[in-house]
């Protein structure tokens, strides 16, 4: 994505009272963490010190979330795998 303004934006079904808005391109987000990530990904060369810090903090927080998600995904994979093994053992 290049830097451009986002004229067409529609709120999600459960919008926050005040969306977090990017001061560089006007794109809106439901929370500050997503905004911080967006700024870091799309506008990295122009970030202020505080914004860069916010980006790093948001990335750290996200890393934790992703780790948790991976555990859940692994559990789901194992469930699918063993589920099929059991079904095949009984049916075939």
């Amino acid at each position, binding site marked *: *994505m290049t830097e451009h303004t*986002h004229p*067409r*934006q*529609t*709120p*999600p*079904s*459960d919008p926050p009272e005040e*969306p977090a808005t990017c001061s560089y391109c006007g*794109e*809106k*987000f*439901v929370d500050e*963490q*997503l*905004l911080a*990530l*967006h700024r870091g*990904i*799309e506008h990295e060369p122009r970030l202020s010190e505080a914004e860069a810090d916010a980006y790093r903090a948001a990335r750290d927080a*996200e890393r934790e*979330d*992703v780790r948790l*998600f*991976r555990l859940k*995904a692994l559990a*789901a*994979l194992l469930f*699918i*795998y063993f*589920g*099929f093994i059991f*079904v*095949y053992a009984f*049916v*075939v």
Partner: protein
Amino acid sequence: MTARRRLAFTLVGVLLGVVGTAGAHGAGLASASGRSLAVPTWLFLLTGGGVIGASFLLASFVTDRAFIRRVHGWRRAVALPALRVLTGVGRVVGVVGLLFVLVVGFVGPQESLYNAAILVVWAGWWSGYAMTTYLVGNTWPVLNPWRSIATVLPSLDRPYPDRLDAWPSVVGLLALIWLEVVSPVADQPRFLASIVAGYTVITLAGAVVFGEETWFETVDPVSRVFRYFGRVAPLYADDGVSVRLPGAGLSEAKLVTSRAEVAFVVAVLWVTTYDGLVATPLWRRYAVAVVEGGVPPNLLYAAALVVGYLVFLGIYRAAAKASKRRARTYVPVEDLAYRFAPPLVAIAAGYHVAHFLGYFLELSPTLLGTLTAPLSPPEPVALLLPAWFGGLELSFVILGHLLAIWVAHAAAYDIFPGKLQAIRSQYATTAAMVCYTIVSLWIVSQPYAVPPYVS
């Protein structure tokens, strides 16, 4: 599929001496049902769905943005010798091919398996050539005979009404498939040649009125299908020829940019499904019941085509809405629909291989035979495919879906700043894909039943 698929069906039937027995070894795909695995159908379908779900989970482990961008951004220039000469030869081959189909269709032998026009169009072009557009690269802009002819015709350059957008190509695609299913386009060479002549008149008239580029880039459904298919392919034109990873062309932002283009991609997916659906025993039973209830058969086929298409559009729209809800994003539903439409092309391509590879191989000796002597063709020869071939075809359905999941994953990472947000946005589309895999595997595994009431 009907008329066209009946061709291979008849071919094998002639050789086995069992023409018309639906239980016999049918067209390419019907042989898939001959798999005598001890796995019951429901478990086989469920496994297909499970593979798609599991691959979504596996893709979700790849969360490194830079890596995803590198994979999709990988490009190399390919040095093709004498590109200009190749282009010139391609244009000549295209135009000569068109004339060949028209002449042989009208004056050649009138039995389908002895007529080179029928075989060139269905086995050569719509099966074999179409496969090259997504496996190798889209060469249609060069080969397209109508485009080559249109470049030398004068143009009125009337402005094309913007609000029509890609809608004429959507209607055109549905109309062509309807014609293929209900009419004898693969049985009667003269009828096929008349249809090709009609298409030639409409296409050239359109290109003259609106200008060659507008017509072939916007209106012509065939060019559009091949252009989208070409996005799956590793080779593409870019100041010469370049190579990329298969499917990498689908995750670019500018591929689908309007409602009408989304509708076209969904139509490509739906017509491949419809084509197979009307050749299943279930459809046969249903159609017989409905027609005996007093509904005219032609209306039934058209209505099923339109209703099924609307159902597919509805499911896609619902998936895009669910994607917005799950991702909690301010990106409009339309934009999400634009970005997540191109992966469907990969599914359609996978399904196309599954449908046509066997068909193409079975008919190719006959095609070559009639090409060498179009006016006094030799006896048809069939290539009998081994039993495991059905399994190979089914694996292409799965492969197409895997590619689609990966492309959608990359597109989601391009749209959303949050990694989990990107993954969540794919829940609904993945659920739809799991269902679609199950349906398409079911269709592919069904024995071929000649669709009733079509000539």
